[in-house]
């Protein structure tokens, strides 16, 4: 069964059409990249998929459920998770609290009012495990604002993965990182994603071709090509978009 199925999705802001008649699907455990030049509609597509903005037309199915009009938090309980292009963290809370909040987000205990958050030992152990994996356990009591940009990017991914999502959306995971840092991040994502399905958008083509099994190309709100990394690399239309036409 497809983890994500998108049918004839359209979105526009005012008279400006951002996404036009987008249809694609992603199977279980697939790693799919979304590429396209600036303004192609990548982030808008991510926002529509995560439920921040309702689409103008079309349908979205998550694990067979129609989630087109479903609020974001309920999509999360179905197994969706995402990271942001611009760091969107709980800046003034400690790193550990950030991770604990991410873990408890899909648990019923998140409404619990009388027991202290520290009483949930399994969550604490899970947070420790996640943070030790990226060597940030020593920083657990620091507020997010004191971490470097590179570390905050790692935390972005950790928070998205903490709920063990079925479908992980990553919006420009390597935004603002050096190529060395990107390498580490890719390594980390590979380690952590397990058999999650991953749909990510990126500008960095090295990142795309090292992680994606399949690539979807978006250009002015339309899908102009999709296929394996190799097919996309040799696709004349994609080459034209990225490199221009030889005069």
């Amino acid at each position, binding site marked *: 069964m497809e983890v994500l199925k998108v049918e004839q999705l359209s979105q526009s802001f005012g008279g400006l059409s951002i996404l036009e008649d987008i249809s694609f699907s992603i199977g279980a455990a697939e790693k799919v990249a979304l590429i396209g030049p600036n303004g192609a509609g990548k982030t808008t597509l991510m926002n529509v998929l*995560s439920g*921040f903005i309702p689409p103008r037309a079309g349908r979205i199915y998550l694990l067979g459920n129609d989630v087109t009009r479903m*609020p*974001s*938090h309920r999509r*999360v*309980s179905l197994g969706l*998770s*995402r990271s*942001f292009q611009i760091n*969107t*963290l*709980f*800046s*003034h*809370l400690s790193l550990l*609290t*950030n991770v*604990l*909040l*991410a873990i*408890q*987000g*899909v648990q019923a*205990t*998140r*409404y*619990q*009012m*009388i*027991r*202290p*958050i*520290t009483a*949930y030992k399994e969550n604490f152990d899970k947070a420790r495990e996640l943070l030790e994996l990226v060597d940030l356990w020593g920083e657990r009591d620091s507020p997010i604002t004191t971490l470097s940009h590179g570390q905050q990017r790692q935390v972005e991914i950790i*928070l*998205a993965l*903490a*709920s063990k999502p079925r479908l992980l959306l990553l919006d420009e995971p390597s935004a603002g990182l050096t190529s060395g840092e990107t390498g580490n991040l890719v390594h980390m994502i590979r380690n952590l994603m397990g058999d999650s399905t991953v749909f990510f958008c990126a500008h960095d083509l090295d990142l795309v071709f090292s992680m994606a099994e399949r690539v979807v190309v978006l250009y002015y709100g339309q899908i102009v090509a999709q296929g394996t990394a190799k097919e996309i690399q040799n696709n004349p239309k994609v080459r034209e978009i990225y490199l221009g036409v030889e005069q």
Partner: protein
Amino acid sequence: MIWRVSKEQKKRLLRFAPHMVIGLLLLTLPIYTDLSIISLFNKILIYGLLVMSLDLLVGYTGLLAFGHAAFFGIAAYTTGILIKHYHVLSFWLSAPAGVLMAVLAAFVFGVIALRASAIYFLLITLAMGQLIHGIVRTSARPLGALTGGSDGLGGIPYPDLGFSFSFSPNSFYYFTFLIFIICALLLYWITKSPFGYSLQGIRESEIRARTLGYNTWLYQYISFIIGGLFAGVAGVLYVHYNGFISPEGVGMGASGLLWLMLIMGGSGTLWGGFIGSGIILSLQYFVSGFTPARWPLILGVCFVGIIMFYRGGILPPLTLLWKKMSHDGSLKG
């Protein structure tokens, strides 16, 4: 048997030492002060609880609620009217009714106000606070006959707990103290719970909280109702303490004063609400004794000073100082 104290317990004891010292001072207050000071501290406790309930909304959830005195007033008026006009003398009936009305108001206001966020939320809560102020201020019948209009509602006695016990100012102070401690502990537990941390997460980034699975609207709504509940408790205590409630205690001026207390004490710290209430009410008490006309000026100077030098309020630097002293100072061991 020797009472062994582990290192962890010692650390905790040391951390809560200031709380215990203040608690002890408050507990023994009637021994070494006169009635007017006890009355002052009684008021500080009631407003302390009220500002702490506001802190749950402002400091923890990030909701800029500017009509908080309305819940306080609704509870005070409800209890007052029940006692005065309907002769519901038992505290066990009139007090829960007051708190219930405050909760119901929060229930309704929350739905309306939470359709907006940030500054718009502030404006809607301000408007609803003024609405309540307008309702209790009108002298038009039948409401005016119940509330006393702009004259206010007076002649409310100390609570009647039954079992032929009657309060003195001292015992009512202890009664307030007990309820304050219970409510403050409940609020403290809430802020340390998964729910409380979720509120802080929502304050930091609502969008991230939503993508982690939190129904942020519901959290804000529940927090708003809890805030209304504790404000209601404070309102019931106040009407018994003061024996009188007037529209001035309900409107924009009152809500503004609560914000002032919160900012002075430190928002997002919970206990800061109590500290802020203590500072402002003490200032009012002592300074207005010297120069009744100029006390707002002195208050203004203090406020500007705190904003300039301690933007986060008084409590955070005090906490830091205590941490430093108890960690590497002479108090160690």
